[in-house]
């Protein structure tokens, strides 16, 4: 079985990977590139822990053959985390107790990032709707919604631009 070469942009850098056909983006990120912020929960599309942004839109990397993102822009949690410190969304999660074990957090933060890019001042209802595909088994959703609300306040208040590695 012949391997294939796939090129895409990952967190602002061009990457080239050699993969077996139809390898998922999730497994390329985690096993091949060492980008382990993207989690592997169910591999069924049901938990959201593997959420990444493809051209700015949240998608589930466990359901995405890496060939499908050839030439596209993929951003994972590593991509929005500054080299020093945290992204305002991450800070808000920390302050609002938006996580316990943290397994769901990368997916939650990526959905929150996409949401706030689309809608800088979402209602609590809109936040709940946006994260409805992201399961959290230990924190409870209220602190997570609080965190995203807090991040929205800060980001739209300061109009801050976010960097990444």
């Amino acid at each position, binding site marked *: *079985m012949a391997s294939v070469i796939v090129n895409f942009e990952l967190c602002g850098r061009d990457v080239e990977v050699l993969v077996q*056909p139809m390898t998922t983006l999730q497994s390329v990120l985690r096993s091949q590139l060492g980008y382990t912020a993207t989690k592997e929960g169910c591999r069924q*599309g049901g938990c*959201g822990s593997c959420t990444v942004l493809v051209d700015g*839109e949240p*998608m589930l990397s466990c359901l995405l053959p890496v060939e499908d993102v050839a030439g596209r822009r993929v951003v994972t949690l590593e991509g929005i985390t500054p080299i020093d410190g945290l992204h305002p969304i991450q800070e808000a999660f920390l302050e609002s107790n938006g996580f316990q074990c943290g397994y769901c957090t990368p997916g939650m933060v990526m*959905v929150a990032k996409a949401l706030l890019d689309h809608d800088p001042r979402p209602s609590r209802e809109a936040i*709940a709707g*946006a994260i409805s*595909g992201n399961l959290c088994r230990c924190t409870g959703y209220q602190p997570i919604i609080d965190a995203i609300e807090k991040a929205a306040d800060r980001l739209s208040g300061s109009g801050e631009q976010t960097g990444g590695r």
Partner: protein
Amino acid sequence: MTVTDYFLPRSLSEALDLLGARGPSLMVMAGGTVAMPLVNDGISLPTQVMGLRHAGLDELREEDGELYIGATVTLTRLLRQQALPVLSEAARNTASWSVRNMATVGGNLFTPPPGGDIAVALLALDTSVALTGPAGTRLIPLGAFYTGFMTNALQDGELLTGLRVPRVAGDTAFIKFGRKASNTPSVVTVAVRVARHDGTVTDARIALGAAGPHPLRASAAERVLAGSALGPEAIEAAAAVAAEESQPFSDGVASEWYRRKMIRLFVARALDRIWQGGEDR
């Protein structure tokens, strides 16, 4: 991983050629939200797969009052279109944001119950599906597309290429009832359309999801409504017949008994919404 070839054709003709050359052992995949979980779990073990994401089947346009929806239009795009609010409503009630960004309208027609929520709304709108093979495209009513549980009218060598939603008369209502507020499998999904003249029903559609082996129309209930004066009496009668003629099932979401009760309740609610909305709009 058993896949030896994953094809991503760049056009419909390339896709049809591949399908013709490789035959039925070529697994077709659009958004992958149904197919990939099965592959990941080893339930489905394809060796050759064709992804349709780049095959150019993602056109969404209005022409002469008709809405044409390419088979690979995502549910997110269906949600954002404004020509047919009932389809936005159906999309909003299907899966989650990330899934909707991947899942396609065409793929929804292949999703086994309790899935197929978009198809329920499409049934109430008299949608036709375009099936394209080497000999060309045939257009059949969505109702005729379904032939049984996970079986359909698609023939070897054919792809579902798009859907045509005609301009239809009447008011519509869509209700999906699940056990959570959103991103929830269906207990029952109901889409209704009622056209009236001087308060009398001239045309009615009642489409149901999670109420049988595939999304279906409650045609006996539709006949009860036709010619009646839409009101509490006709609504109750139609809802009772819909519950009787449907074939709900038990699964982890709900029992057959409960589904049948809910079919009656939510058909009545959907019709009630139209009735309360006013006459002859």
